[in-house]
C-alpha cells in the first residue's frame, strides 16, 4: 500500500511534464532563471509606473516651483520634532544665497516639517483624459514640498518628470520593435521561404544596413525632421527612424529559422498533403519559431530605448514639451552644471535598470524559448 502510494505521487509529476502545453513548459523553464523573474517584475513595475503616471507623480511635470530652482533631493525623516516617529515627514526646504558664488544653497529646516501623505489631494489632473481627479499617491500638506529627486533648473519636480518621461521612453521601444518586427517577419519570410533572387536582394539590403554605423545614420535622418512638426509627429518620426535599422536582425532570424524548418519532415508532409505555401508558413512553420523571434525582438527593445535617449540627448530627437528620459538627460550636457546638481543624472539609473532588466528577461526567454531542447525528465 505504501509502495503504491509512492508511485502515484511520482507519476503525476512526470505526467504533468508530458501533458504540459508548450507555454506551460516555457513558463516552468523561465521560472528557473531567477534573475529573469526579477527582471520581469521590474519591467512590469516600470510599465505600471508609466501607465499610472498621473496619480503616481507627486506633481504636474510642467509646473514650475519658482522658489525651488535646482533644489536638491529631499530626505524622508523619521526623526523630527525632537523625537522618533513612526510616520515619516519631510522638512521645509529653505535657501540662502552664497555670498561668494551667488548660488542658492538649499538646506532642510528641521524645525518646520510636514508629514508625508499617502493618497493625498493635490493638483488636479485628468486621468487618461477620461475623468478629473486630484488624488496623488504621494504628497504632503500645502506649504511643504516633497521633491524626493530634487528639481531641475526650472523648478520642476524631477521624480514626476522621470515618471512621465517613462511613458515616451518605454513605449518608443515597443512601437519601434513592433514595426521592425512586422518588416522583419515579412521580408525575412519571403527571403527564407522562397529563396532565389528575392533572398539575394533582401540579404544584400540587410548586409548594407548592418554595415552602416547606426548613430550617425540616425542622427542624419532625425536632423531632417522638420522643426515645425507637432510633438506627436516627431515621436512617430523618431520611432520610424529607429526601426529603419532595427528590422534587419529579426529578418535574419526569421530567414534562418525558415530555412532550417522548411526541410523538416512535418513541412514536407504538409506540402505533400496539398497545403498552400501561406498555410504551411502560418500553421506549421510560424508557431515553431515564433518564440525565437519574440526573444530576438525583446533583445532589440533596449537598443531602441537607448537610441531615443541618445538622439534626444544630442538634441536631434524628441524636444520639449515632450518629456522623455533622453530629454531629461539633455540638461546634463553642461558637466559643470551636473557637478553642482548631480541629481540631474538620476534618469540614468532608471535607464540602466530597465535595460538591465530587458537583457535578463531576454536571457531567460532565450532559455525558455525552446522548451523541448533539453529534457529535464
Amino acid at each position: 500500500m505504501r509502495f503504491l502510494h509512492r508511485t502515484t505521487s511520482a507519476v503525476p509529476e512526470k505526467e504533468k511534464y508530458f501533458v504540459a502545453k508548450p507555454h506551460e513548459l516555457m513558463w516552468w523553464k523561465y521560472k528557473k532563471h531567477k534573475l529573469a523573474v526579477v527582471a520581469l517584475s521590474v519591467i512590469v513595475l516600470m510599465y505600471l509606473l508609466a501607465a499610472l503616471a498621473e496619480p503616481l507623480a507627486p506633481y504636474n511635470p510642467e509646473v514650475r516651483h519658482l522658489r525651488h530652482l535646482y533644489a536638491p533631493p529631499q530626505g524622508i525623516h523619521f526623526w523630527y520634532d525632537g523625537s522618533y516617529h513612526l510616520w515619516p515627514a519631510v522638512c521645509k526646504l529653505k535657501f540662502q544665497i552664497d555670498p561668494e558664488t551667488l548660488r542658492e544653497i538649499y538646506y532642510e529646516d528641521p524645525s518646520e516639517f510636514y508629514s508625508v501623505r499617502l493618497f493625498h489631494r493635490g493638483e488636479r489632473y485628468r486621468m487618461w483624459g477620461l475623468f478629473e481627479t486630484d488624488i496623488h499617491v504621494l504628497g504632503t500638506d500645502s506649504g511643504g514640498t516633497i521633491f524626493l529627486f530634487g528639481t531641475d533648473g526650472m523648478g520642476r519636480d524631477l521624480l514626476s518628470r522621470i515618471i512621465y518621461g517613462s511613458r515616451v521612453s518605454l513605449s518608443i521601444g515597443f512601437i519601434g520593435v513592433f514595426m521592425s518586427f512586422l518588416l522583419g517577419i515579412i521580408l525575412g519570410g519571403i527571403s527564407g521561404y522562397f529563396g532565389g533572387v528575392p533572398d539575394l536582394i533582401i540579404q544584400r539590403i540587410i548586409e548594407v544596413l548592418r554595415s552602416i554605423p547606426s548613430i550617425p545614420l540616425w542622427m542624419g535622418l532625425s536632423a531632417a525632421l522638420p522643426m515645425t512638426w507637432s510633438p506627436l509627429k516627431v515621436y512617430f518620426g523618431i520611432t520610424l527612424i529607429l526601426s529603419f535599422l532595427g528590422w534587419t536582425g529579426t529578418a535574419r532570424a526569421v530567414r534562418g529559422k525558415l530555412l532550417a524548418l522548411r526541410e523538416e519532415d512535418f513541412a514536407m508532409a504538409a506540402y505533400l498533403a496539398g497545403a498552400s505555401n501561406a498555410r504551411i508558413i502560418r500553421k506549421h512553420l510560424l508557431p515553431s519559431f515564433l518564440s525565437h523571434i519574440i526573444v530576438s525582438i525583446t533583445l532589440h527593445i533596449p537598443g531602441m530605448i537607448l537610441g531615443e535617449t541618445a538622439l534626444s540627448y544630442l538634441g536631434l530627437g524628441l524636444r520639449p514639451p515632450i518629456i522623455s528620459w533622453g530629454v531629461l538627460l539633455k540638461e546634463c550636457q553642461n558637466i559643470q552644471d551636473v557637478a553642482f546638481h548631480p541629481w540631474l543624472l538620476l534618469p540614468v539609473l532608471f535607464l540602466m535598470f530597465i535595460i538591465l532588466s530587458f537583457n535578463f528577461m531576454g536571457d531567460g526567454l532565450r532559455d525558455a524559448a525552446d522548451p523541448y531542447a533539453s529534457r529535464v525528465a
Partner: protein
Amino acid sequence: MISYIIRRILYMIPTLIIISMVSFFIIQLPPGDYLTTKIAQLEAQDELVNRDLIDALREEYGLDKPLYVQYAKWMWNVLQGDFGYSWEWNKPVVDVIGEQILLTAVVSLASLLLVYLIAIPIGIYSATHQYSAGDHALTFLGFLGLTTPNFLLAIVLLYAGYAFFDKSFIGLFSPEFENAPWSFAKVLDMLTHMWIPVIVISVSSVAGYIRVMRANLLDELKKQYVVTARAKGLSERRLLLKYPVRMAINPMISGLSVLLPHLVSGATITAVVLSLPTTGPMLLGALRSQDVYLSGAFILLLSTLTVISTLLSDLLLAWVDPRIRFE
C-alpha cells in the same frame, strides 16, 4: 583563396553604391533646394552673397536638374575626391574632415583592439571556471558594462572626474597641442588622453563579447573531441588553447562586421559628450546647421570605412578558419 577575395571585393560594390544612395538621400532630406535656403539666410543677415560662387556651385551640382542627375554628379565628384563645399566652414568638405575621419578611425580601431584583448581572456576564464565566484563577478560586471550605454558612461565619468578628481576628461589633446602641427610629442600626448574615450567606447562591446566567448567556449568544451584529447593525456592548457579556443574565436571574428559599425557609432556619440576632435561633434554641428555636404560626406565615409574593414575581417576569417575556403 584569390577567387574568394575577388568575389568579396565585387560583393562590396553594390553595398557601397547603396551606402552612397543613403548618404545622398540624407543630403536631399532638408526641404527645398539647399542653396536657395542658404542664400535667403545670408540675405536675411545682410551678408554679402557671393553670387558667382553660388552660380558656380549650382552649375556644379546640377541643382536645377532631376535627382538622378544630381546624384550622378555628386557621385562623380566624390569619386574624384571632391565631397562638395561646406558652408559652415567656407571650405571644401575634404579640407574640413580629413583629420577628423583619421582620428575617428584611430580611436575606433584602438577600441576594437581593446575589445578583443579584454574579452577573449576573460571569456576563456569565465567558461573554464563556470559558476565560480570569479565567473559570477565577471558576468555581473559584464552585464553592467553591457547596460551602461557608452554616452551615459561618458557623462558619469565626466561628472566623476569633475566632482571627485577635479580633473577634466574632455578632449584628445592637452591644450598646448590642440592646434599644434603633428609631431611625435603630439602623438604621445594623444595616447595619454586616448585611453578614456577608448575604454568608454569599448566597454559595452567588451561585455557583449565576454558573453559570446564564454557561450561559444562552453559549447565547444562539451564536444567529443575535447574528451578524446583529454583522454589521450593532452595537458589541460594546451588542450584548451589549441582546439576549443580556436573554434570559439571564429564567431567572434565574423562578428566583426557587426562590432565595427557599433564601435564607430559609439565613438560618434561619445565624441560629442567628451568633445573629442573626431567626427562626432562636427557631424552634429553639420546636421544642426544643415551643412548637408559635410554631413553627407561624414556618413558616406564612416560607412565606407566600416564596409572596407568588414571585408578585411572576412578575409581574416578565411585565413583563420580553413573551412571557409570550401564555400
